């Protein structure tokens, strides 16, 4: 299927995905959660096309940011690999569900995830110091990372892996169904279930997102949901945006960004809920 899109619209797509990914990048996540609502509500794209473009941009952002996380030795690669079994299974389920879910349900599900993200994003303060080393009973996934702020190496343990795996399955499902990285679900899951330090959670989640998204993106690519004339500009903008976002993250106060993003997320959630009812009306009229 070859869809020709006007050049002007392609530039709009590029600009919008740049901004969406910059917003996401400020929090160390992919911009899918901002991108899909904007593409469907303002770009008037079919939600499957928007999800197809977004899921590829999620992979691109994950790969683009992997360098900085891996370089800082924050990623727990072994743990990521094991959790990826759960997330890819979830993604597989999500792809299957996306074929049977009506579009209006997708909009509603998206609104719920947006609200959940807004809640997650509210500023929280937690301190961690060098004294939290585990001592004896070294386990397979336990690891350590160098913390430049505290100036020491922090050791950590991985707890409650089965619960973590179950939550990851859900995160993978949501990721495939809605075309988002769902880092917003993975990070809290690792935080609460596995009790990982937040930096390790973000880095490991970002690493996993690429593999999880590849499971669904591959299927969507073959199914024709990934329209090259739309996904192309979206990916181009997303990579630049995520790198810009990471730069801004270093320059601006974290709490202020978070409050701004909470407002954006709430606004998008409202739009998606309105879209849900709009879709129902349109379908009822046909």
């Amino acid at each position, binding site marked *: 299927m070859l869809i020709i899109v006007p050049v002007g619209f*392609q530039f709009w797509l590029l600009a919008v995905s740049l901004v969406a990914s910059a917003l996401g990048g400020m929090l160390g996540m992919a911009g899918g959660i901002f991108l899909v609502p904007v593409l469907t509500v303002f770009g008037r794209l079919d939600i499957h096309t928007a999800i197809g473009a977004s899921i590829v941009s999620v992979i691109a952002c994950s790969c683009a940011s992997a360098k900085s996380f891996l370089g800082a030795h924050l990623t727990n690669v072994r743990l990521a690999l094991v959790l990826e079994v759960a997330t890819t299974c979830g993604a597989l389920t999500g792809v299957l569900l996306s074929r049977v879910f009506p579009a209006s349900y997708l909009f509603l599900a998206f609104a719920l995830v947006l609200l959940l993200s807004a809640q997650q994003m509210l500023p929280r303060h937690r301190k961690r110091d060098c004294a939290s080393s585990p001592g004896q009973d070294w386990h397979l996934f336990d690891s350590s990372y160098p913390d430049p702020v505290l100036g020491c190496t922090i050791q950590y343990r991985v707890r409650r892996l089965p619960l973590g795996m179950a939550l990851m399955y859900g995160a993978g499902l949501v990721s495939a169904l809605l075309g988002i990285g769902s880092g917003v679900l993975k990070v809290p899951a690792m935080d609460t279930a596995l009790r990982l330090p937040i930096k390790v959670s973000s880095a490991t989640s970002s690493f996993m997102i690429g593999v999880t998204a*590849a499971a669904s993106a591959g299927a969507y690519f073959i199914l024709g949901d990934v329209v090259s004339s739309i996904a192309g500009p979206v990916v181009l903008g997303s990579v630049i945006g995520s790198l810009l976002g990471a730069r801004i993250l270093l320059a601006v106060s974290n709490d202020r960004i978070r409050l701004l993003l909470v407002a954006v997320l709430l606004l998008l959630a409202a739009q998606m809920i309105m879209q849900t009812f709009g879709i129902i009306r349109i379908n009822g009229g046909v």
Partner: protein
Amino acid sequence: MSSTTLTRRFENRLAKILSYGTWLAWGTILLGGTLSALTDRITAGWGSTFVSAGIALFILLPVITLTMLLITFLKDRDYGFSAVAILVLAILFLSLSLGIISRGAPKKLVTPHSRHFAPALGAVFCR
């Protein structure tokens, strides 16, 4: 600890490959997009192919990551993690084959695309 240094070196190598891969795929899409923008019919066709190739490369990057992990684990004779890496790769291929199987099924995608798409844009051509 020799195992730690090996992991660090592996992480650095992986970071480098992902970074090169990202820019290669990005450049391919940009090239395709530029070709498409030159309104010539032939270059537009080529452009679309390049964009698709770039997108496919992005989807392949995580597969390359997993393969690198698998090779490293096999070299270390870490068969448990090798098995996990193979399992994740198998799920990815299962997902791909799922796409291929469903593709054979009657397509309902084309109509909704054009229906939701056309009113906003005014000039969208489907062919």
